[in-house]
């Protein structure tokens, strides 16, 4: 539990980025399994890197942004971009 990188909530938030990663993975596997082209290791290397490198970049950015956002999460704070004072005034009215 404690050794997990993110808590469950965050993992669910991040799933929006894991799904495109899943797609990239799917295509990597597809290209490996279904390769009706004459073999050429260099081309295959380029082909794979073109999918895998953006995937890794996305994974890294997701990790760091997830960290930054979760690290600064505070249940008390105002909604993103909203004025705290005004939101408080209105909260009672809006919730009913």
């Amino acid at each position, binding site marked *: 539990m404690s050794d997990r990188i993110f808590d469950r909530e965050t993992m669910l938030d991040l799933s929006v980025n894991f*799904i495109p990663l899943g797609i990239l993975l799917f295509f990597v596997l597809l290209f490996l399994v279904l390769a009706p082209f004459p073999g050429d290791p260099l081309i295959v290397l380029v082909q794979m890197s073109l999918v895998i490198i953006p995937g890794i970049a996305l994974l890294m950015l997701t990790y760091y942004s997830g960290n930054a956002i979760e690290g600064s999460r505070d249940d008390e704070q105002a909604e993103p971009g909203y004025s705290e004072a005004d939101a408080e005034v209105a909260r009672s009215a809006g919730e009913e």
Partner: protein
Amino acid sequence: MNVRRILPVAVVGVLALVAVEPAAAQSSINDELITDLNTTLLYAAIPIAIIVEAILIYAVVKFKNNDDPKPTRENRRLEITWTITTAVVLLFVGLASYQVLAVEEVGTPIDSEDRIEPAVSEDLEGAVGPYEDETNAVEVEVEAYTYAWESHYDEGAVTARNEIRIPANRPVYLHIYSSFWLHMLHVPELGLKQSAFVGEYNTIKTEAYETGSYQFYCTQYCGAGHSQMNGEFIVMEPEAYDEWLSEQRAQE
């Protein structure tokens, strides 16, 4: 108001697209594969587009000045559901496209051991010849320059301007190159497209099913004469093609 406007547009769109689909036999293997794929995608895309637009319009109409608004509640399950649904649709698009791409007429013929040397007249790299067992294959060189096309047959023995002739029902290899500036051959009705580069050949392959004439275009912007750079792509009966070719050869 939105509904009244968008729905007819969408319906007209669907009808128009269906009308564009050549309902009769396909003109070439490329066209057949691409049109089938395109139709399949349209069958998925048009309903999705209409449904999403309809939900949007419904939401706007239904909740316009709604007296009983509810505050937003996060619903991650819903989020993840539609993300995965989108992903599945796109996987299907990718899988279908990849299978079509894997056909060398749609993808590009790739050089390999079991091919013969391409029959080309210029000393340039990049051309790919027919397979050894494709004995009836035809090779045509297509040269682009500002602002015209020339087709060369029999390794340059025969040349025609602004027209490209191929026989039906035989594998055809088009070796495309440019002698001045960048151009692109596009035969929409046969599903053919390839850039013409200076200093290299690019080979595409096709097999036409039907005889007839089609418009071809230059679809790489190339300056003042770009809009005049089109011509006639003629698919002939194989016998007629051979006859034409020997006539031309005799004249040269």
